[in-house]
């Protein structure tokens, strides 16, 4: 990746974590998506403020013994796929405001 990529959860979807999986329904066309454990970690970390490569490094590589380049390629494919369906927003600039320390996301 030549520049940083920021990912944020779309406000037009509904999501619910059930066990290790996350179900997401698009409010646009009612399409239902299922995220597995790793994708759920990416989804939860997609606050629009932390770059994707940092998320992958901190949340995926450390947790799952996976090579950084491979993990980043997989993560990129996932977020681009979800962005095509309006589930995630992608930008080369930070999206939204950073979370304050201790702030709980609703």
């Amino acid at each position: 990746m030549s520049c940083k990529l920021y990912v944020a959860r779309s406000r037009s979807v509904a999501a619910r974590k059930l066990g290790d999986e996350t179900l997401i329904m698009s409010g646009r066309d009612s399409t239902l998506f299922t995220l597995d454990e790793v994708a759920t970690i990416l989804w939860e970390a997609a606050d629009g403020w932390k770059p994707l490569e940092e998320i992958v490094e901190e949340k995926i590589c450390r947790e799952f013994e996976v090579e950084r380049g491979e993990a980043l390629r997989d993560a990129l494919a996932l977020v681009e796929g979800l962005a095509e369906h309006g589930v995630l927003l992608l930008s080369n600039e930070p999206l939204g405001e950073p979370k304050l320390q201790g702030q709980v996301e609703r």
Partner: protein
Amino acid sequence: MQDLTSLARAEITIEIGGVPVRVHSTNDSFLGMLERRYAGFVTLGSHAGFEFDIELAESGSGDADAELRVSWDSGQWRLERGDFAAEFNPLTRRGRIRQSPNPYSIDAVFRVLHTLLLAQEGGFLLHAASAIRNGKAFVFAGVSGAGKTTIASLAPADATLLTDEISFVRKDGDHYAAFGTPFAGELGKPGENVCAPIAGLYLLEKGPLNHIAPVTAAEASRAFLANVLFFAEDQELVRSVFHSACEFVAQVPVCRLTFVPDSRVWEMLT
């Protein structure tokens, strides 16, 4: 003096899931047809939750297989399909239906109306058969061919059929209840107009033996959502239905029920 018979037949009130919907028409034979089709759901009470004026077009006009579109426009819900057009205002609780004199168009309007009302209160119309036994409702969800009519037809004599096609599920206090509907499937028989607390939701699958297996919450939610009827192009309501479905599967036991066409399957349901 006005003819009392025609006055009495100028309207009919059909109550599904405790929501009385009154329809007005100047066509006496059309109202008679509705009275027969919705027998058991026709009520004589004076209260109406919604009222519709029906304008009848020529018989056979329009394509009932065309795609149904439900949209929100200028404070009204608009429903359009090849064979009918309707609109209603949820605030005034009044609307109009333009259709040919067939029972299927108004059936579709009723289904859409109830999905919209239920979506606002955590309920659903489901592709599911349901029946009451021993004071408890059992709901059997599945796509066409999964066995909804079969399981309904295997119900023992002491069971009360709520529907073999479209189940009406609504929150009732701290639990969910299933109500009878007139929406019949292959059985060709409307349900009884009664309700009971839901004991369980069974995801139907035909197989070589009768077997009940647990499912994960995610699997239950996916299967449940796949069977929810919802037509409106409305992001807020879609999100609301999604969260309601997750609430439902968190509260009601959901299992996968594999069954052979054998009435003994009912003895496994408690």
